């Protein structure tokens, strides 16, 4: 994203906002989301029901949280393949913490998030400090996290987690599901962080040109290390919220979240090369995918079509991006 600027060359020109909107990375996904939303509203009355919308939004928020962290990693020019497995391992950690110790259920969330941050820092150590390839490092840690989850649980879910803890996954605040509130709040914080803080701008600098970033005195490894830690933290949040929703810490949670997260970021205009992308785009991307999946169910289309359609959406998204650049 470009920095918010106070002056705009085209402010006085009429319809200048159209040009600015077109240059915005997230414009394509927003238009697609609106079109789909309106189309489904007309096609099936069930879509606009409060119950359905809250299901869709909650669905979007689990993958969406992971996608937020993934967006940060993609912005520094990396990739984190271990997020789904980190989500599962963190969910198991949090569930064990809850069931095996007398800890207050409300403390589980922050402790699990910290645990996830620690998992991410393992990736960060290898990628940022030892300068190893992030694809390979996180491919390995994906296996390790997933394997560790199975070693601990032997494949069995941990349940029940208790009435008090279920509020995170099943409760609502002002009618809005708690995971959605957390997702939107995290998105808002990250948007601010990226646009308005030195750390955020350093993320764009390191992702856009690492050599130059080092030469202006940015310690690139610190930025990268923290970003991987954050990716682990968001994965842990998604995992433990999902466990709360299911009232069960399941070893299989997070399978399929990795690709969903990367897809949401890419549909939202984040570049795999680093240095380019927005949190808002990723949020729209996650929503678009959830609405699509929901629409397929409501329209009585076979669920098997979902992946075909999402694949097509990704291709269309990068084509739109290509045309915008030209």
């Amino acid at each position: 994203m470009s920095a918010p600027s106070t002056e705009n060359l085209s402010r006085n020109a009429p319809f200048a906002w159209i040009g600015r909107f077109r240059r915005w990375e997230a414009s394509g996904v927003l238009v697609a989301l609106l079109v789909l939303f309106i189309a489904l509203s007309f096609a099936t009355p069930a879509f606009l029901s409060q119950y359905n919308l809250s299901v869709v939004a909650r669905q979007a928020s689990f993958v969406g949280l992971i996608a937020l962290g993934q967006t940060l990693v993609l912005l520094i020019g990396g990739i984190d393949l271990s997020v789904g497995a980190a989500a599962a391992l963190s969910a198991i950690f949090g569930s064990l913490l809850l069931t095996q110790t007398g800890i207050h259920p409300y403390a589980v969330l922050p402790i699990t998030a910290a645990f996830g941050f620690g998992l991410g820092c393992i990736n960060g150590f290898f990628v940022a400090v030892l300068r190893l390839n992030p694809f390979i490092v996180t491919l390995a840690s994906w296996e390790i996290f997933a394997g560790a989850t199975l070693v601990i649980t032997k494949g069995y879910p941990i349940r029940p987690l208790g009435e008090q803890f279920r509020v995170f996954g099943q409760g609502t605040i002002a009618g809005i599901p708690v995971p959605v509130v957390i997702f939107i709040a995290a998105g808002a914080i990250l948007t601010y962080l990226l646009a308005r803080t030195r750390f955020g701008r350093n993320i764009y600098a390191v992702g856009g040109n690492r050599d130059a970033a080092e030469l202006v005195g940015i310690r690139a490894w610190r930025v990268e290390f923290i970003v991987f830690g954050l990716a682990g933290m968001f994965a842990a949040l998604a995992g433990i919220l999902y466990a709360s929703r299911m009232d069960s810490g399941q070893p299989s949670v997070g399978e399929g979240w990795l690709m969903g997260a990367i897809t949401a970021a890419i549909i939202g205009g984040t570049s795999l090369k680093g240095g380019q992308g927005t949190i808002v785009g990723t949020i729209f991307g996650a929503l678009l995918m959830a609405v699509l999946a929901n629409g397929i169910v409501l329209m009585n289309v076979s669920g098997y079509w979902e992946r075909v359609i999402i694949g097509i959406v990704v291709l269309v998204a990068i084509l739109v991006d290509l045309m915008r650049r030209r």
Partner: protein
Amino acid sequence: MTIAASISPAIPLFEARGISKAYGVVQALSDVSLKVQAGEVHAVVGENGAGKSTLMNIICGKVSPDSGTMYRDGAQVSFKSASDAQAASIAIAPQEINLVPRLSVVENILLGAQERGVFGQIDWKKTRARALRHLQEIDDTIDPDAPAESLSKAQQQLVQIARAAATSARILIFDEPTAALTDRETNRLFAFIRKFRAAGNAIFYVSHRLDEILELSQTITVLRDGVLVAELNPHEATKDDLVRHMAGRQVDAIVRDRATTNIGQPVLTVTGLSRPGEFRDISFELRSGEILGIAGLIGSGRTELGKCLFGVTASSKGQVEVFGEKANIRHPADAIARGMVYLPEERKQEGLFPLLSITENACISTFGRFRGLLGLRFSDMVREVETYVDSLKIKIGQQHDPITSLSGGNQQKVILARWLMRDSKILILDEPTRGIDVNAKGEIQAVLRKLVTEGLSIIYISSELQEVIDVSYRILVMHEGALKGIVQAEEATQEDLLALAMS
């Protein structure tokens, strides 16, 4: 009308008529026409941003013009890609290196044009022989089996030239071919160019080195702001004529003003600094208010020394004192914290953030200053940058435009502003005027002179000896990693420096 054109045969080897090209609101070229006859070297000169590269990229098919027509041997052609142009036997040796780093020199030269055997497989013996023939015409000291990444910048440039020649083109485009070359390599290249042209081929030659152009070319086209302002005959034109047409006004002769009264205490003391394979046992002092030149040929270790001082690489031995304090600099951030900054030689790879705006490129190292209650205050940044846009005469559209929308000279000024904003005390400048036009060069040097009178100290690394002599007070000469001497610039001549640098 030039002499060359009036006595030449009717049909030019290549002709372009009325070429125009706009990028957004910037008119890169408007209605430019030029032609080249068989046996002619046609030089194209102009300041940075004058449209030379755009014109060359249009001729070699990399860029499509908005309007205009092109003719090859009198027949109209239009190129959709570089391979279309190659089919019309037009090839370019670009300024930027784009070799495949891991492949050998031989493979790079004939990439995609390898000799084939009966089954369509690559015939390596024939391919190699052909590549060698082309390589040796340009330079016979390059190891044909070495991977491209192991070559020096100059050698890579030469391999690119060999690659262009190997396309059996009749029209070659050279974009700043000699920027990184030594004199020996340059002479060799000129011999090739003369031979190539004598064989009835033609060359478009883009360069900032006006002496070279006067020596080599038969026609000189001068571009300014995308417009063809003059077509000159090198036998009649002088360097001053060229500069006048390029700049559109008389450029003041460089004032060699070295008021040395301001020079004060040492700010940087280097003792016995070594880094294996790069430089050894370097000792010198930089004093406040001084411009210290570092001269040396390619491979002398000048850039490596600059980077080591800035903390990009670690020294193995020796000591560095900044403002009288022993400094253990392990990262650029350490040097910056002590007021010592570095402007890299490779502007594009190491200096610019291509995806960020001009404002952010300028403020990237000073974000801490713009922190407010609600985060970074971009409006303050814009205001601050505006003062540097004025004082350094940076030509920009809007501050939120990407930095890549600027010409090289203006990009360099933005990077300079980045460091001046920090109130840096010691500037290490590595080839600060490389690839920058005469006017911007003069402006940058004037700024540097002003800065030292305000008490800053500058280390000025350059391969252009005359430039070092003009700018510096003292000059440190290096050769193959060793310090060969420190001379007073006032008494120095290019010959003196060269003698030291080659000893």
